[in-house]
């Protein structure tokens, strides 16, 4: 009885690296762990490991603003993210872990006629795919979010919004931990603080993964390394159309709950939600220059604070609690890059920009299927790396460029 009062490890502590794994997954974030979990669960994979250069969930999985939604602009994107939201809806039960998924509704504000037109397009694409999404006017916005400043005081008054009822927020650390625990229980070896330093290849296949803790023979490799994708790709000789940028966010001190929807404004470059702790969680746009230095900027705080006050002037005297950055892997068309590369057994999940976290479960399902069967699932076929060579892009600019 006494033991219930002691914290238990959620997954086994790091063991020795085995000499060989059938599948080596680089990156211990939500994508890598989900892929490992579904490989073990759906395809009975017995020999899978996760290599993470830092602690589990240390990258973008633990730094995003936890928004989950599927109201994308392209049919390819909306279908893909729609499936992800459906998986998230079942995930707490499946993984036996309270992920605190709160489908509180998601409002993307329009401050111009042009924005309203784009939102109408998105709503129509979404409806065709069975995704709840519609354009609403100020009166409906006021009913959903009475605290939002809908007057003509702001520089860009709110004209309407794209309303997406199934959108919401989730506890991102819990998603990482739940996938890690479930993968571990199915025999996946999780190796934190294990950095990949190189790949040995023969006949166009990766045969050995070199790490700072020794070498591993491998059957297949999956790189799910977000902002570091280019560097891991370089080690395998796979060139990617990716640039790495920082994205920043901050939370305020906890306030009395008054916001129970997610508010996004592309015009103002902010997205705002109130966490279960009462903090206002506010994210912004990526810094325009590429960098691997994850340090925040004062200009981000100034701009985001000013823009948040356009929406919620009552936050005026609120103090900031903390701020952080994450590395984003931006693709040219704002759609992900998923699946096969020119190296036969080296697969990637990259190009996630500022929207990777919401796709974790569906990435896991589809990449696991690809690794297990060798065939690219239909849902991710449009997101192949090959599209940049054939110039058949999937432009998600309208719905993803300003993150969330």
């Amino acid at each position, binding site marked *: 009885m006494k033991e219930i009062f002691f914290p238990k490890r959620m997954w086994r502590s790091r063991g020795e690296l085995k000499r060989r794994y059938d599948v080596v997954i680089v990156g211990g974030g939500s994508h890598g762990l989900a892929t490992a979990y579904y490989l073990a669960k759906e395809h009975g994979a017995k020999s899978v490991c996760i290599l993470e250069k830092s602690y589990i969930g240390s990258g973008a999985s633990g730094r995003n603003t936890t928004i989950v939604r599927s109201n994308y602009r392209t049919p390819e994107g909306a279908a893909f993210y729609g499936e992800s939201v459906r998986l998230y809806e079942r995930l707490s039960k499946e993984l036996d872990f309270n992920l605190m998924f709160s489908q509180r509704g998601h409002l993307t504000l329009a401050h111009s006629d042009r924005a309203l037109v784009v939102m109408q397009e998105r709503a129509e694409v979404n409806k065709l795919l069975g995704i709840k999404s519609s354009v609403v006017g100020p009166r409906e916005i006021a009913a959903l979010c009475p605290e939002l400043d809908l007057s003509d005081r702001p520089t860009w008054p709110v004209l309407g919004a794209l309303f997406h009822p199934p959108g919401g927020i989730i506890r991102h650390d819990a998603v990482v931990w739940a996938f890690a625990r479930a993968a571990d229980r199915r025999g996946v070896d999780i190796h934190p603080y294990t950095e990949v330093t190189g790949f040995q290849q023969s006949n166009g296949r990766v045969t050995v993964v070199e790490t700072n803790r020794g070498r591993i023979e491998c059957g297949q490799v999956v790189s799910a390394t977000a902002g570091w994708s*280019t560097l891991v790709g370089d080690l395998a000789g796979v060139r990617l*159309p*990716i*640039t790495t940028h920082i994205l920043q966010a901050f939370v305020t001190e906890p306030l009395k709950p008054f916001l129970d929807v997610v508010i996004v404004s592309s015009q103002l470059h902010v997205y705002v939600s109130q966490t279960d702790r009462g903090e206002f969680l506010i994210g912004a746009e990526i810094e325009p220059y590429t960098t*691997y230095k994850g340090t925040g900027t004062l200009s981000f705080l100034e701009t985001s604070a000013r823009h948040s006050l356009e929406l919620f002037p009552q936050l005026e005297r609120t103090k900031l609690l903390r701020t952080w950055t994450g590395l984003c892997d931006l693709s040219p068309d704002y759609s992900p890059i998923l699946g096969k590369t020119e190296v036969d057994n080296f697969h990637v999940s990259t190009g996630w920009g500022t929207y990777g976290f919401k796709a974790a479960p569906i990435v896991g399902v589809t990449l696991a299927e690809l690794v297990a069967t060798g065939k690219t699932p239909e849902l991710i076929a449009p997101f192949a790396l090959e599209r940049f060579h054939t110039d058949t892009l999937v432009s998600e600019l309208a719905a993803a460029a300003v993150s969330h």
Partner: protein
Amino acid sequence: MSFVLACPHCGPRPVDEFAYSGEVTRRPQSSPTLRELTDYVYFRDNVAGRQREWWQHRQGCGEWFLAERDTRTNEIISVSLPKPGT
């Protein structure tokens, strides 16, 4: 912390005054294959280390120039005006 960039004309200014225009790429031959063209348009080195890149002093004199920057630290190593034909 954001960083300070020295415009070749105006001197050191906060990076927010400048527009970033990506790493220096090599233009393909006059009649490129689709592969050469897509490689030039989409694919990037995205190095973690010293990178030569284009900047424009958009909120200042408007000059386009080249900088060499370490993307791991954002340290600016040098700035220069492009030679004709770059």
